[in-house]
């Protein structure tokens, strides 16, 4: 190859290199960011809190008129300002007059109804007192009749016994001979008394079961209604059940149980007595005395007590009972055997309400609710369950009756046997006559027993009748209700009349701005608001929305500047009344300030602003100098000189910083990471990052 050619090639190569040197330099410098530097300054960070909103009324005033009136003319529109007493709308006078007339007629009608009601009440009252008197009369009559027959039977018995005694005396039978017989007779009488007692217990129990079943059924039929009925002492309930048990539901149960228990105890004690008696039969024949009759009466009376005890709701009636009982005592005094018992009865009755009070006191809602929850049962099932509850007691009572009967029969058989033996021993020819007398005594004894049982029944039944008649009547408040209605109507009437006097015109109650009109000419007035007014006398307020992040720079009592939307009015130093979160937007806070009277109009747009300055920070940089890295940590870019192949160049250097406070344009940095003499990049003509080569603009 020629040297000259090689030299040319070398020259060309060098020329090309030179060209590309220039080109690459140019391309490189085009890629370098031009930046301006700034030093951190000592300054305060000002926080501008700014929000806009609308001026609102503090209070609204609703104008309401009588409902159902035809509106004549509406004089105001929404947004219109009205003065106090200014006409809002008027009502059609014809319609008003009509209403007044109607109202008057209604009042009249009501008054007439009240009058009718009053007369009806007095008639009812009379009927009731009559029925009660009747029942009392019936009761005392049947009781006296029963006691009369009882005493008659007793008399017969004594007579027969006496005849037998006399006959024996006449026959010359010695006292010693008949001693055994007398003892046996005594035992017989006791057995008979026990039998009567058991029979009465059984009757009482049966009646109680029936009552419990009826109660349960009725409660199930309509628990709520039942409650009312029971409380007011509904006559229906009274009619069906002579002894109205005001204890409801479960509460009734323990009572009934208690009663039944008591009865049972008594029956048992009776039985026991009987047993001990029959045991001591032969051993101690002389142990029994004449007080037996009294004991028997007492037993009967105790049963009566139990019945009264059942009757807590009837306490007022008990007062009435006393005279009745007195009557009874009077009628019962015919019989010597009855009289002590009767007096005791009266006192028992008087005492009872006090005891009963406790019982009724506990008869309250808990039981009711429980009962109600059970109330949706089948009636048959309820009846069955109630009966099942009582079944053991009933069985016991029946057994007691049977036992008593058996004992009585045995005792009688023993007596009979004894007598037969005596007769046979004496071998008298008059045995036939004596046998007749003995039979007569026995017949009298049986008649006496029947009469005693019948007397008890009469007492129980009669008692029921009296109770029923004595039930209080349902409370009747119709009268009071009518009175209240009347009062209300009169008030309405007076309002209508006032409206009429004002020619049907409705005026604004306060100075205000109409914010809502809910009536239309020709339509009826609604039940609710007719016209809504913004009350001007109560002032107005501005509620402005600010972003949540600005919330920390504003607090209650801060003085803010309020500027009206049109920029004409500026109010300085208005204190912040409240700051609250907006219900529908969590990121917005509502700042409320009170607007001084007359400064801004309701409905106006306005702006609220507040500049809060922080303490002075020594290192403040413009926000444009602050960058965030991928971890959201703030940093600034300082500039450092580097020796690169291209010579000394400026390179951006990342310096992590801690921002103490910032606003929209400046950020305050904490000391340590940079110093006040260190320049940082505050602006750049292109995006730069750590390590970017930069050229510092002058």
């Amino acid at each position, binding site marked *: *190859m020629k040297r000259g050619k090689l030299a040319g090639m070398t020259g060309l190569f060098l020329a090309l290199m030179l060209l*590309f040197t220039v080109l690459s330099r140019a391309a490189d410098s085009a890629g370098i960011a031009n930046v301006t530097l700034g030093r951190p300054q000592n300054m305060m960070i000002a926080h501008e809190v700014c929000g806009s909103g609308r001026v609102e009324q503090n209070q609204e005033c609703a104008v309401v008129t009588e409902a159902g009136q035809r509106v004549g003319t509406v004089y105001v529109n929404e947004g219109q300002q009205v003065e106090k007493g200014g006409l809002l709308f008027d009502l059609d006078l014809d319609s008003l007059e009509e209403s007044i007339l109607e109202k008057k007629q209604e009042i009249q009608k009501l008054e007439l109804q009240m009058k009718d009601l009053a007369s009806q009440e007095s008639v009812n009252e009379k009927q009731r007192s009559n029925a009660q008197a009747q029942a009392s009369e019936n009761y005392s009559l049947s009781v006296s009749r029963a006691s009369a027959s009882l005493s008659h039977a007793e008399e017969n018995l004594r007579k027969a016994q006496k005849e037998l005694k006399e006959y024996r005396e006449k026959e010359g039978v010695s006292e010693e001979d008949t001693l055994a017989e007398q003892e046996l007779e005594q035992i017989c009488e006791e057995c008979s008394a026990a039998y009567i007692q058991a029979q009465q217990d059984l009757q009482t129990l049966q009646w109680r079961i029936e009552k419990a079943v009826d109660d349960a059924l009725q409660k199930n039929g309509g628990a709520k209604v039942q409650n009312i009925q029971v409380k007011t002492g509904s006559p229906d309930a009274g009619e069906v059940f002579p002894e109205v048990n005001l204890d409801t539901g479960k509460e009734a149960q323990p009572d009934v149980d208690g009663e039944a228990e008591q009865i049972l105890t008594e029956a048992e004690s009776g039985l026991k007595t009987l047993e001990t008696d029959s045991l001591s039969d032969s051993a101690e024949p002389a142990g029994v005395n004449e007080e037996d009759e009294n004991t028997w009466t007492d037993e009967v009376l105790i049963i009566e007590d139990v019945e009264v005890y059942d009757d807590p709701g009837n306490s007022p009636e008990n007062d009435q009972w006393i005279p009745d009982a007195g009557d009874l005592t009077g009628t019962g005094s015919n019989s010597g055997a009855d009289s002590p018992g009767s007096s005791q009865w009266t006192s028992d009755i008087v005492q009872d309400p006090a005891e009963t009070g406790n019982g009724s006191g506990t008869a309250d809602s808990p039981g009711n609710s429980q009962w109600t929850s059970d109330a949706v049962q089948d009636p048959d099932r309820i009846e069955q369950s109630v009966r099942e509850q009582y079944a053991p007691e009933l069985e016991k009572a029946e057994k007691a009756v049977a036992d008593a009967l058996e004992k009585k029969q045995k005792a009688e058989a023993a007596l009979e046997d004894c007598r037969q033996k005596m007769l046979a021993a004496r071998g008298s020819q008059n045995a036939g006559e004596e046998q007749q007398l003995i039979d007569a005594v026995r017949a009298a004894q049986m008649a006496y027993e029947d009469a005693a049982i019948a007397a008890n029944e009469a007492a129980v039944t009669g008692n029921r009748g009296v109770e029923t008649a004595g039930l209080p009547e349902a409370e009747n408040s119709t009268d009071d209700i009518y009175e209240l209605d009347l009062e209300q109507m009169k008030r309405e009437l007076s309002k209508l009349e006032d409206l009429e006097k004002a020619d049907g015109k409705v005026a604004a109650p306060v100075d205000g701005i109409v914010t809502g009109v809910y009536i239309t000419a020709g339509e009826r007035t609604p039940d609710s608001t007719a016209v809504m007014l913004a009350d001007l006398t109560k002032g107005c307020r501005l509620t402005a929305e600010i972003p949540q992040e600005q919330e920390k720079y504003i607090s209650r009592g801060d003085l803010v500047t309020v500027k009206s939307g049109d920029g004409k009015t500026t109010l300085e130093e208005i204190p912040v009344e409240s700051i609250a979160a907006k219900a529908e937007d969590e990121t917005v806070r509502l700042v409320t300030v009170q607007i001084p009277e007359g400064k801004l109009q309701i409905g106006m747009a306005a702006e609220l602003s507040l500049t809060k300055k922080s303490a002075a920070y020594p290192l403040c940089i413009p926000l444009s100098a602050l960058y965030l890295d991928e971890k959201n940590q703030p940093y600034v870019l300082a500039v450092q000189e580097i020796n690169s192949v291209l010579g000394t160049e400026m390179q951006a250097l990342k310096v992590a910083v801690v921002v103490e406070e910032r606003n929209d344009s400046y950020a305050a940095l904490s000391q340590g990471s940079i110093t006040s003499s260190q320049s940082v990049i505050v602006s750049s003509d292109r995006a730069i990052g750590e390590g970017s080569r930069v050229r510092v603009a002058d």
Partner: protein
Amino acid sequence: MRTIVLRGGSHMTAADKGQAKRNRKGQAGVKKKILNIMITVLLGFPAAVMVFPVLFAFSGVFMSGYELKQYLGPVLAGAEGMARWPLVPHIPTLSPLVELLIDSPQFFVMFWNSVKLTLSILAGQLLVGVPAAWGLARFSFPGRKLLYTLYLVLMLMPFQVLMLPQYIVLERLSLLDTHAGIILPAVFSTFPVFIMYRFFHGIPEAILEAARIDGAGNLRIFLMIGIPLGSAGIVSAMILGFLEYWNMIEQPMTYLKTRAQWPLSLFLPEIGLDEAGTGFTAAVMMLIPALLVFLGGQDYLEQGIAAAAVKE
């Protein structure tokens, strides 16, 4: 390293060709021809192995970054498998070239640094080395032999031995981190003096005697007779010097801190796998001046190498 290998490759290629030429000059017998072919094949194989790195660099110039990563990943980026190198890229592209020429001003800074350093050193060696060689070759003075031996010893010393004393001296002279610190020690290098000494020494004494008789002074003899007759030695020393200083890497790495002063030889170590394409392109660019110089001064180079091989 690569360039050193390249130099070796060129050397072998040159030797190969020289031998072939000589063979041709010998005679044209058939046997000789067969022998020639056999020798060519025999020597061609190692020659191809030597040339491979150059081809490697050339194909790399036209390879995209993605392809380069695929092939070199196992070696340079710890990827699995074995490195491969196809001589023809799948998707040939000029982007590495464009990137180097347009987007790498650093390359040009270094290129011109290299040019500056190399030319300055060569110029200095011309100024200092040529008279020194002439003096040693043509004048007799006491201690000449000792001085020459000292030159030889210094020439044989590797850079690693001289590095520390040179560093201390340069530091004292405040020449560290300057181009002068590279240029000055190289200017006073003994190797070119040694090369040129051989050529000046070979000029027949009779020619110089004739000049003296014609009334020429020592300076005139040096400029008019010595330099023209020893030009082959001067050129070969310059070519050898160029190849050495164009590729020098230890001195700048040791004495230059400022990157802006670095020569092109330090550009390549800066290149990573991401810019492998640029690296290959830069290597090729670096090869071009050396190739041009070699082509221009091939004859002189051979003479210089032959001269260096003969020691007195």
